[in-house]
């Protein structure tokens, strides 16, 4: 806590964070990052927050990124929110939605039923009344199979170099095709892809203020990945927010000091970052076919939190005929589990309005975004199918066709 708090003194009250805060710009219920952060923090010496409006912070992290003075506003607010929850208690709903892996394990065998229940409007109204998940909020569909299961059976081509894949809960339970495409792209570039057994990184628990549980998850995940990192193997993630959790947030927000986490974070790469690094070294295959598509691209807040620029845009630049429309909107509004909550769904829709308009205005074939919950939210709000950048790369490499050809 002291490391983050020390940055408070650098605040000059310039209000740049407030200018960029997507939430305070959309609702009067949140007074803004400067107010609940550097200002209110002075009243939080070993005690709870002076007011509960802090809970309306979505944790997107934009305030920290835009602060010219280096104040860790988002991190301070996350920690204060956890303290607030400790004293005021955490709702049952938040405990449920913060554990996607538990839900995934329970629902996967009965996916058709689970999906029917979660898409059924009368039932959703009951769920909303009972626990406060908004009836219209975009909930992902269970795939009915796991990526882990596919990976255990999958045999890749012979390779001379190896990479470790941290797929996250999203790819495991909801988007196993994304996991398969990520493996396909990496294998096409000459890698053996190692998929260790892995569980949730704890990020949804962290953003719901359940720090102790989050620490348990992230430590276990770090322990599972650390042996590979110690061998010097790079670890890539197609879930940009979960990758950021391992890179930085577990250390800065949860204050986990752990040798396993340290070595894992040093070897952690966002998938697009990793692929562009290969390209920089002349090692990325550029046998990419044309994709005559118009694609609005939204760099999600957590992707920007990596501080790696926009490698997805660089990758898109390698695909002939692909027309990419970079979105200027800062945030889609969902912020992980924030926008599925009954009292916050409307805010999440308002926050994303600029982005939704931008996506629709592009009259696109598909949209692209690095983060799973943001993709689901954009798709829900615009009706435009929204994919991870890797999917476009996979198509441009024509990997499905190649796989078919090699089988045939």
């Amino acid at each position, binding site marked *: 806590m002291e490391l983050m708090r020390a940055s408070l003194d650098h605040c000059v009250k310039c209000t740049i964070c407030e200018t960029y805060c997507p939430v305070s710009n959309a609702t009067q219920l949140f007074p*803004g990052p400067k107010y609940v952060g550097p200002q209110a923090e002075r009243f939080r010496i070993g005690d709870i927050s002076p007011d509960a409006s802090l809970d309306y912070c979505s944790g997107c992290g934009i305030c920290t990124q835009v602060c010219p003075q280096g104040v860790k506003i988002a991190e301070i607010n996350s920690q204060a929110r956890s303290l607030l929850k400790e004293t005021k208690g955490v709702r049952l709903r938040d405990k449920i939605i913060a554990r996607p892996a538990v839900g995934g394990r329970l629902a996967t065998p009965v996916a058709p039923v689970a999906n029917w229940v979660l898409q059924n409007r009368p039932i959703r109204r009951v769920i909303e009344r009972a626990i406060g998940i908004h009836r219209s909020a975009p909930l992902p569909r269970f795939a009915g199979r796991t990526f882990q299961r596919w990976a255990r059976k999958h045999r890749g081509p012979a390779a001379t170099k190896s990479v470790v894949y941290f797929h996250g809960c999203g790819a495991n339970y909801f988007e196993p095709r994304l996991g398969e495409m990520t493996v396909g792209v990496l294998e096409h570039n000459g890698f053996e892809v190692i998929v260790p057994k892995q569980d949730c990184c704890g990020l949804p628990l962290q953003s719901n203020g359940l720090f102790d549980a989050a620490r348990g998850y992230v430590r276990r995940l770090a322990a599972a990945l650390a042996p590979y990192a110690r061998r010097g193997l790079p670890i890539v993630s197609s879930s940009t927010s979960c990758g*950021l959790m391992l890179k930085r947030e577990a250390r800065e927000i949860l204050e986990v000091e752990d040798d396993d986490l340290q070595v894992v974070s040093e070897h952690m790469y966002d998938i697009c970052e990793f692929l562009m690094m290969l390209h920089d070294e002349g090692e990325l295959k550029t046998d990419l076919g044309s994709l005559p598509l118009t694609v609005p691209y939204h760099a999600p807040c957590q992707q920007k939190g990596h501080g790696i620029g926009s490698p997805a845009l660089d990758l898109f630049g390698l695909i002939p005929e692909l027309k990419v429309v970079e979105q200027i909107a800062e945030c889609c509004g969902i912020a992980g589990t924030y926008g599925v909550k009954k009292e916050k769904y409307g805010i999440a829709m308002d926050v994303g309005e600029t982005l939704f308009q931008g996506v629709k205005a592009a009259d696109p074939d598909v949209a692209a975004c690095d983060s799973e919950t943001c993709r689901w939210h954009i798709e829900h709000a615009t009706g435009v199918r929204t994919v991870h950048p890797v999917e476009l790369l996979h198509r441009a490499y024509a990997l499905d066709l190649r796989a078919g050809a090699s089988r045939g």
Partner: protein
Amino acid sequence: MTFDCVVIGAGLAGMTAGVRIAEGGARVAVIAKGVGSLHLGGATIDVLGYAPEPVDSPRAALDDFIAANPDHPYARVGTNAVSGSIEWLRDHLPEIGFVGDLDANLQLPTAVGVAKPSAVVPRSMAAGDLRAGGDFVIVGLEPLKDFYPAYCADNLAVAPLTNGGSLRARAISIAPPVAGEADVSPLGLARRLGDPETRKEIIRTISNRLEPGETVGMPAVLGVDDSPAVWTDLSESLGTGVFEIPTLPPSVPGIRVFRKLLSLLRSAGGRLLVGPEVLGMEAEGGRVTAVKVDTSTRIVEYRAAEFLLASGGVSAGGIKLGSDWRFVESVLGLPVALAPEPGGERFLPDYFGEQPAARAGVAVDDALRAVDSEGNVIYENVRVAGATIAGSEPWREKSGNGIALATGLAAADEILESVKGGD
């Protein structure tokens, strides 16, 4: 990461340079620790207001000023570059509609009702020119803290007029329909003024209290991206001149300029990275080969043929005073010129006087490359723009944005020439 040019800093100097370099066909990344000072300043281009006597025409004064101040950034680029940079800005941001030129300074009111000389100003501010006098009504918006219309109007009413005209000013305060809000920022209000219904209500209230012949001054919250339409609507509906007065931060006029420049940068293929800090550099054989950028867990090298340092001066942290009383350039560690000797007097009691440390910064040659105390170029491919350059006192001269714009674009030209020459 490899680029033709890496620009450090996203203020007016860094952003305009980034746009020019990108439009010139080079691959450019602008890297900034946070978003820049455009969000804080008033977006007027103040070229030269005091030298130190009041300047009526920057064009007429600049040559003498340069001769008298050979260490000044304007002396490095010359009057023509200053003039050309303003034309560039006017052409590139037609929505802002910059008016004025180097021939004559306008005198615009600040939020506390003091006349400030600016050469070029957004169209939405021009009707506030005090030189010819006139009847002004300053309209306060009640939820907006830190803008006191009576304070502004009372000071304006007693402001000395150089042209001998007469100036009258009075204040009114109105309550726009923003019910239920405790804390409204200028940006929040500006967004609401984009709403035609809110605007109609405001126009009606002002109309009722407007007297014939009065020009209307308002805090600078007349829309964000839609500001031309908002300002036109207010001017036409009220049937008189309407002008914006820059507020305390956040500065909506500055944000408009930043957003336009960012959009130009992106359409020209340039990149902006906000958040990661540049920690230092790698150099070899008199050239910088890469800057080291702090990403979330790793230091990543951004390699480039050319580098532009536009990290700001003391107020932005580009120049720092160490605990050992030495001034340092905080990003690349370049030597700081015109700083007081360690142990010497750094600050004088007269706040507005000429402070010993005021001109501290990085000295540059005519190609805006950083030079050492002997005048030798330190790195062939490191240029400096804006407030990081030594030799100016922008707050006394009223020259900050003028210097940022002229040196940013001049550096961009040098960089483009060098990148193209290297091909």
